[in-house]
């Protein structure tokens, strides 16, 4: 049982929640850029939260399903011939076209049972820099056939059958996605980084006052932010240190880079700020050309933001479980 890629779109890869525990040998966890959307998509088709799905970026694919398959497309507002943010039973032999993202940058197409590619180091995520995971470690292309679990058709029908409040091949409700921005610039809460104090007061103000634009060469490794040039007062080279998802570093050219899912685990550039973990999935929903703004935050506030996301996610999950009659 497979999904046939008729047209791959801009950048489509297989992603799950990533591979953890390998950062000491230089391998970042990777995985879905917007894990919140992935988790909701999986819940909508009755999967475990970390099942592998398709990460679709800015311009979506045309896909052909050979059997009845329960799917959910969650995240950015893509123009598509299925309704978003809800389970949909796609009929065997039919075609699914996903066009442009009108709002947001990424969406996840989850299928009942998950995309059944082999696990590498405990994850099915595609890691493009290392060319492993997913399908041959690469971006999906026309002609690819994505393996589904053997009983995916049976799972799809059974799960769809269990859903309450159906309408046609879908349902009468949807789960609002809360990582996709209503308006830009979005506010990203940022904790002062190790080298923040090495930027003078004007630069520090500039960092928080500027509306930064995400550049076209931003990718799964990092987002480059165009704006005024940031220069560090001290000119000495810093000793390479560890980095993290959401670290904002400033290379010599003065253009800050926010580290995203496939980031390097260490870096030799000054680290001006660290984006609160709860806000990183929201940044992943900003497409090139989109804009962001930083607001100063401390660890207490970062914890509040995590708690808020957790509460909203749990509410959504409870709602979905109820619809499944659990």
């Amino acid at each position: 049982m497979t999904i046939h890629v008729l047209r791959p779109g801009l950048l489509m890869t297989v992603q799950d929640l990533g591979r953890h525990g390998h950062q000491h040998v230089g391998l970042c966890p990777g995985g879905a850029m917007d894990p919140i959307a992935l988790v909701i998509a999986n819940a909508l088709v009755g999967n475990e939260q970390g099942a592998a799905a398709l990460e679709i970026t800015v311009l979506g694919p045309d896909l052909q399903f050979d059997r009845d398959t329960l799917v959910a497309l969650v995240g950015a507002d893509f123009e598509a011939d299925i309704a978003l943010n809800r389970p949909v039973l796609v009929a065997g032999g039919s075609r699914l076209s996903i066009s442009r993202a009108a709002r947001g940058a990424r969406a996840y197409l989850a299928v009942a049972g998950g995309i059944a590619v082999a696990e590498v180091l405990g994850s099915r995520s595609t890691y493009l820099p290392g060319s492993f995971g997913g399908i041959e470690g690469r971006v999906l292309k026309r002609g690819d056939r994505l393996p589904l679990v053997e009983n995916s058709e049976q799972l799809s029908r059974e799960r769809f059958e269990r859903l309450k409040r159906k309408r046609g091949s879908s349902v009468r409700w949807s789960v609002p996605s809360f990582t996709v921005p209503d308006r830009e610039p979005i506010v990203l809460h940022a904790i002062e980084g190790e080298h923040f104090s090495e930027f003078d007061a004007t630069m520090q103000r500039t960092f928080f006052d500027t509306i930064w634009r995400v550049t076209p060469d931003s990718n799964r490794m990092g987002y480059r932010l165009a704006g005024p040039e940031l220069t560090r007062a001290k000119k000495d080279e810093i000793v390479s240190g560890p980095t993290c998802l959401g670290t904002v570093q400033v290379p010599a050219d003065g253009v800050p880079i926010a580290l995203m899912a496939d980031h390097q685990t260490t870096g030799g550039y000054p680290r001006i700020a660290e984006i609160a973990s709860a806000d990183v999935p929201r940044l992943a929903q900003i497409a090139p050309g989109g804009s962001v703004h930083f607001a100063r935050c401390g660890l207490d506030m970062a914890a509040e933001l995590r708690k808020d996301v957790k509460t909203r996610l749990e509410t959504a999950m409870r709602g979905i479980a109820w619809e499944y009659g659990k």
Partner: protein
Amino acid sequence: MAKLAPLGAVPLGDCAVYVEFSRALDLEVNSAVQRLARMVHAKALPWVRDVVPALAGLAIHFDPDHPDVFGDALSASLNVVSECLKEGLPKEDDASRTVEVPICYEREFAPDLAEVAAAAKVTPEEAVALHAGSEFRVLMIGFAPGHPYMAGLNPKLAVPRRATPRAVVPAGSVAIANDQAVVYPYAISGGWNIIGRTPLAVFDAHRDEPSLFGAGDRVRFKPISRAEFLKHGK
């Protein structure tokens, strides 16, 4: 050496902390940091996701909301570090292993060897002997999966990085700059001087131990011929 004590702890966002031991690269501190990282890792704490030794300190990546965290995860991480330091770090010899790396210094794999030798005012053969005759130590894995930064380069071979980085450096390339050596795990862009190539896979996700090198490893390069290099690759 003097007693190892953290200079400070910097939050790496809200899901990790960087515990720093020196502001410059110090080989003794670096070695201690690696042994400390192994000790912290060996505690297998359920809320710790990754322990990453860097040049002058280590990062502890954690789940800040894990139910097993006592208090806040940042303080808990620092407590683990002080506990380990109190227990005492293992001796260096007990902790490190030696990795032998076959390397071919033939011109086709070593585009910068002649230039490096000229800068060092030695023949290419002498430059090879200086490189292969040294023992290196992995200071840190970073930049790319499995990519080692190694100390131990003979000071005679100390040359700066290339003015213009190469767009693509072939996988397995062994390169030097300043007082360090690296081995490129993948074909990526890089600005170091390439003096040879190993046929070994530096990082192979499908291997039991994906990374050829670990922080703290001792490394020796063993010269091989072109024929041996090609045989390895099969």
